[in-house]
């Protein structure tokens, strides 16, 4: 017999919890939902666009009645719960019907606060909370002319804007002297007011409502100073009150809201609560992103998983009034120890203020140009040290220079037919359509429905920005993402567990971290395999079945299923004998094409898989080894001829390249890793777009890190100058090792350096000599095991099953 779960409150927070629960445990509960409104779950945040005539009710329905049926959820609309009986474990409807529960979820949301002035119960005095209110407003706009909105906050301004677009003459009444004072500082507030006045709204500031006058229906609003204004409709939008009356009556502990723990449980552990009705660690929330975070945690506990915790949220605000761009987030009250960076251009309609504390972004207020809102919000949530970028901070992400962010923040300005995902040919319009049509909220949703950002991933930031701009306040980029759908742990958490608990096999990781699927998936297994062999090179056993085919078969799979073979050419320096061996192999094994690669190697394409071991044997006999051109591994070290031949050369860059390649070949990495050594600052080997680049100078060597060509070119950062070749090797080994130990799987050095900061890398490599030497030592230990030529091993018969068919039927092919 299944347990019974009852949800009181058919709104966004409660229903999101059920959706999250169904993802985890679709069969665990018999679920019944009670909603006071006559509609299935709709997107309350989009009531403003409905009022403004930009969307219809149907557009904002999130879960249709069919959805409830499909998921076997019993839905009672128009059905208010009047009592929770905790002893009998039942809920009672207003009509007197009683329903039993084993677990109860309270998501009763909030009520608009109606100021209890005389006349507040007259016809035509409403809040702005639900579809019924919107209907009343749209109806009033047809028969009446004058509207007064009490409250100059987010909700009030959106209501006022909507009523104005419905043709009413609207006056906004605000108690204080500046609008949206909780989200905006004074200057931004002034600019907002000026542009709303220009749109046609009237304002009465510092006006205290004293009385609403009328016979049956409202006629006037009177103020404390004796003045008055005519009104056919009064919308009270002065705030919301968490709706916890029902819970309080049932004896649950309530303060400003229904008090919940980090697991979203009330003081009765069978009763959970999420959404605007709750108070968590002293805070109540009225925006959607925190509610979704709560929903996730609550579902985790309802599914008996028990490891999710809600720790509160940082929130941001966007005003949904078409034509006005406004964004605010964090704390901008200033105060001791804070600094302001301000750009103020009232005539140009732009105001930006960033509040810093201890080199971190504390708050942001943007008006007119909000394109960087998401970026600031991310810096704030992640607590990024901004001291190195503070001079460019105010000008936004696009102005960070060559650090690879260029072009990322153009989401809002892009036209619908602009291509976002260049791998799969997905346009912005298709993404926006999928988001609104299919009700998508997360990056993963967009990836699986549209394929955008699902291939090389370089457009991920852009897709997130499109989500952000399409959903407005509904979308919050997850702070740190789980490895995959098999777990809620992040890459960093998984790696820490492997290291701290000395986990040495994929199965023990699955067991210890309670993986949701018994074999993991194609996303997590390669990552886990890498974390295991890089953390415990001497103990962990490589699992070929958890490697992508290229690494399992030690060649690059091509679109026709054949493989490519790229032998190592140390430092790019070769001999006639080696070239002859390669030429002979190309003929003997029917290479379809011979290609010179960008990394100074020779690529033999179109090799049948079955012929690979024999071909490797042939090359091995002639002294050649695997080039690892197929792996998340050290690829090539590219060089120029250097001082041996070149009249400009200052050092023997070729020998340095060979030495670095002998040092590092065979090592597995989070992603591919390329090096280059140039013999002089002319830099013919292009060392400044490599993961580790060396440029010879008269007095020694200059070391560069974190560069790449590819989709998003990034020039290296200069790490330091050293004088001897031994130092170059020591620093190279230490850098490779810290990257191997700390970067996330599939994170190249460029994004890794940007994430952790150049100063961190310098701290590890330059300032901590003992640490540097320890890193070098760990790298060499790992290399002892890794430096076996995989081609030779397979030529001698290892993994023979990989390269031979199980059976040939008939004549075969």
């Amino acid at each position: 017999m299944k347990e019974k779960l009852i949800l009181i409150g058919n709104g966004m927070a409660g229903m999101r919890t059920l959706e999250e629960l169904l993802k985890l445990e679709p069969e665990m509960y018999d679920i019944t939902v009670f909603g006071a409104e006559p509609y299935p779950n709709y997107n309350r945040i989009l009531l403003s666009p409905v009022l403004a005539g930009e969307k219809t009710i149907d557009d904002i329905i999130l879960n249709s009645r069919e959805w409830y049926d499909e998921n076997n959820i019993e839905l009672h609309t128009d059905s208010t719960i009047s009592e929770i009986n905790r002893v009998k474990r039942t809920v009672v409807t207003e009509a007197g019907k009683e329903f039993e529960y084993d677990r109860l979820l309270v998501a009763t949301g909030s009520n608009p606060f109606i100021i209890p002035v005389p006349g507040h119960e007259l016809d035509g005095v409403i809040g702005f909370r639900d579809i019924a209110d919107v209907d009343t407003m749209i109806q009033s706009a047809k028969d009446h002319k004058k509207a007064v909105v009490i409250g100059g906050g987010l909700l009030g301004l959106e209501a006022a804007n909507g009523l104005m677009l419905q043709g009413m003459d609207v006056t906004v009444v605000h108690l204080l002297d500046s609008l949206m004072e909780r989200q905006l500082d004074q200057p931004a507030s002034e600019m907002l007011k000026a542009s709303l006045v220009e749109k046609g709204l009237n304002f009465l500031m510092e006006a205290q409502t004293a009385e609403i006058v009328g016979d049956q229906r409202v006629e006037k609003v009177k103020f404390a100073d004796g003045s008055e204004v005519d009104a056919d409709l009064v919308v009270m939008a002065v705030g919301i009150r968490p709706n916890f009356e029902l819970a309080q009556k049932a004896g649950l502990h309530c303060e400003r809201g229904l008090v919940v723990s980090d697991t979203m449980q009330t003081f009765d552990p069978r009763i959970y609560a999420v959404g605007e009705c709750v108070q968590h660690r002293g805070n109540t929330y009225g925006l959607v992103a925190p509610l979704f975070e709560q929903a996730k945690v609550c579902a985790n506990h309802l599914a008996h998983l028990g490891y999710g915790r809600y720790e509160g949220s940082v929130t941001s605000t966007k005003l949904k009034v078409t034509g006005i761009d406004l964004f605010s987030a964090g704390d901008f009250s200033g105060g001791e120890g804070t600094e302001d960076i301000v750009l103020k251009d009232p005539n140009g309609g732009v105001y930006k203020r960033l509040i810093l504390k201890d080199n971190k972004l504390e708050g942001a207020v943007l008006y007119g140009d909000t394109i960087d809102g998401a970026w600031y919000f991310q810096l704030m949530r992640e607590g990024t040290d901004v001291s190195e970028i503070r001079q460019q901070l105010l000008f936004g992400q696009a102005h960070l220079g060559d650090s690879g962010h260029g072009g990322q923040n153009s989401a809002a300005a892009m036209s619908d037919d602009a291509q976002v995902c260049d791998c799969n040919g997905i346009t912005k319009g298709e993404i926006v359509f999928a988001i609104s049509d299919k009700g998508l909220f997360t990056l993963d949703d967009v990836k699986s429905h549209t394929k955008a950002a699902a291939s090389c991933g370089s457009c991920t930031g852009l897709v997130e920005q499109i989500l952000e701009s399409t959903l407005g306040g509904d979308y919050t980029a997850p702070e740190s993402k789980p490895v995959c759908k098999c777990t809620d742990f992040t890459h960093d958490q998984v790696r820490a567990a492997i290291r701290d608990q000395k986990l040495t096999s994929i199965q023990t990781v699955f067991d210890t971290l309670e993986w949701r699927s018994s074999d993991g998936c194609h996303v997590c297994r390669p990552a886990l395999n890498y974390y295991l062999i890089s953390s415990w090179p001497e103990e962990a056993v490589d699992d070929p079945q958890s490697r992508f085919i290229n690494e399992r078969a030690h060649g690059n799979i091509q679109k026709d299923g054949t493989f490519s073979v790229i032998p190592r050419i140390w430092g790019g320096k070769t001999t006639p004998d080696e070239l002859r061996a390669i030429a002979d192999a190309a003929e003997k094994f029917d290479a379809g094409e011979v290609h010179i690669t960008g990394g100074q190697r020779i690529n033999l394409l179109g090799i049948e898989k079955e012929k690979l071991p024999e071909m490797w044997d042939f090359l091995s006999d002639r002294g050649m080894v695997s080039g690892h051109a197929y792996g998340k591994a050290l690829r090539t070290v590219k060089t120029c001829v250097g001082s041996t031949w070149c009249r400009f050369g200052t050092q023997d860059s070729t020998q340095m390249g060979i030495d670095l390649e002998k040092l590092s070949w065979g090592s597995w990495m989070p992603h591919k890793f390329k090096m280059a050594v140039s013999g002089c600052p002319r830099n013919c080997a292009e060392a400044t777009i490599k993961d580790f680049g060396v440029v010879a100078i008269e007095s020694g060597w200059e070391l560069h890190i974190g560069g790449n060509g590819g989709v998003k070119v990034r020039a290296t950062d200069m790490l330091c100058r050293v004088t001897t070749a031994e130092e170059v090797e020591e620093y190279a080994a230490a850098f490779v090792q810290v990257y191997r130990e700390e970067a996330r799987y599939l994170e190249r050095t460029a994004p890794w350096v940007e994430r952790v900061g150049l100063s961190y890398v310098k701290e590890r490599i330059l300032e901590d000599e003992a640490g540097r030497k320890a890193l070098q030592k760990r790298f060499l230990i790992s290399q002892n095991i890794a430096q076996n030529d995989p081609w030779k091993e397979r030529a001698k018969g290892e993994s023979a099953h990989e390269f031979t068919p199980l059976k040939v039927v008939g004549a075969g092919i």
Partner: protein
Amino acid sequence: MNDVTNNIEWIEVGKIEDIPKLGSRLIKRAEGDIAVFRNSENEVFALLNRCPHKGGPLSEGIVYGKTVTCPMHNWCIGLNNGEAVAPDEGCAPTYPIKIEGDTVFLSMQPDNGCDK
């Protein structure tokens, strides 16, 4: 059910241990290769070795549960039914497998109505 079973022509393809756990081996034939998979529960499945997306060799994919991920563009294909996992759409023909002792037998007649 028995009638159908009796009409099937079974071909012996090898021992179950010949197929790596969470891996695959190929049956080569002129009409298109068949990939034989073994999962962690020692279940064996057979699919035409062509991803319904762009013909990628499914035998080279990573296997987990009852799914293989194509190495070309990460489509996930159900091993038991040949169906692409939603939201992708398409299917690969599946072939009946019979295990007697530790010997694996295969029939060349696709059985999921996907034999185009």
